[in-house]
């Protein structure tokens, strides 16, 4: 009969135990997730895929080829080998220069070197890049 004496206390203790049990279960699951290597792997993999999509996208080549046609072909010296490109743009007007530079800056390529010079109000751009 003693348990009847402390009925409310027993109820409270049981409720607190259930609460603590549930709390620790949640904490354990949460910590397990935080420490989980699978999250790191997932994040890494997703990031690599995203970065590859930007910098190693196979469809980039068509965008790079468009660079050739941005100004008159007489002003372009094009030398593409595999995934490397050397290109020179000669006698560019201000407008053309801006157009070429904007296009280059928007291409997903690794610019190895780029030199632009103003000669007699005309610009000359030489660029080496790869992708």
């Amino acid at each position: 009969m003693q348990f009847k004496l402390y009925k409310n206390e027993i109820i409270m203790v049981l409720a607190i135990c259930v609460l603590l049990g549930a709390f620790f279960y949640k904490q354990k699951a949460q910590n397990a997730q935080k420490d989980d290597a699978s999250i790191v792997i997932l994040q890494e993999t997703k990031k690599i895929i995203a970065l590859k999509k930007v910098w190693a996208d196979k469809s980039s080549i068509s965008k790079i080829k468009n660079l050739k046609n941005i100004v008159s072909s007489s002003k372009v010296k094009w030398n593409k080998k595999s995934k490397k490109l050397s290109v020179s743009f000669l006698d560019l007007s201000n407008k053309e220069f801006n157009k070429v530079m904007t296009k280059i800056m928007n291409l997903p390529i690794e610019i190895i070197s780029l030199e632009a010079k103003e000669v007699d109000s005309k610009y000359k751009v030489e660029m080496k890049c790869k992708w």
Partner: protein
Amino acid sequence: MEKQNILNFMEKNKELLLIHTDMQNVEGTKTKRMNIMLTPQFYTLRREAVPVKYIYQAKKIAPSMFDGLLDDTLNYQYYVEKGERWLFIAYDIEKIKSFLVEKGIALENIVKIYFADQSLSHFVSPVLLGTEQALVNLNGIMTVVPQKILDTQSSPIEITSQFIPKKGETFNLASNVSMPNNETYILAAIFILFAAMYTVEGSRYDMQDNKESEKIAELFEAHPSLSSAYTRKNILEKYNRLDKKERQKRKIVKKLSHIIFKGVTLQTLTISDHSVQSTFKCKDQNIVNKLSSLASKEKLISQKGSNNLLSIEGKL
């Protein structure tokens, strides 16, 4: 017999024990659940018509109903009941408990406490309290009187479970003071609710974990080369470096294009692996200074040269 056993689970069918100061020690209460009815020796009452509608309002004003009537040294609890007039009862539970213990009553077996004044209508004749006193209904107030003054023609009655009124005070030995029933149940319910929330949240984390494992398996199936941690690390490093550097180059070129204004002409622009360098030809010295300040605002390094030339460099 079977029916009676079933009914015994109901409080009103439990034995009703009348508690009075002259009572004998009670035997055999160790296992039997019972209700008790107190005589006015254990409480003080008032019947008043007060302009309140609800029990909680009456409970609030109950202490004030007994101003100056109670012993200040005791700790009173109040019972209220609605009727033609409100019934207010003040009692000291500790005093009652110690009396019950003294009489050998197992407190844990007491289910409810009732007050004799709640069952006025049942006291049609006196109820004898021991050998000297009797409990009588005197003009609507239960009173303990000497048996000597009782009318010899009125035959005393025995108290039975029929005397149990509709409502009573729940008696819970341990919880009465430190942990009342209501609070216990409310708190326990809140704890269980939180426990349920934590469990749901925890299982959500678990499920998420499983989903991630499935996603990883799918990704590795589509990109088998990434299943090696070493390869993954190298590829990630390579592309992170490339992404950072190329974005930086473009950012500096963009900054340079933003700071150019009328009177400034780009002379040279060189992008290498370490920096982006440019030379601007300015119309006059004022423009050189202005361009220089704009460059420093953009956190670019500028260096003035001869013939109004200004070199601006951004490090990668």
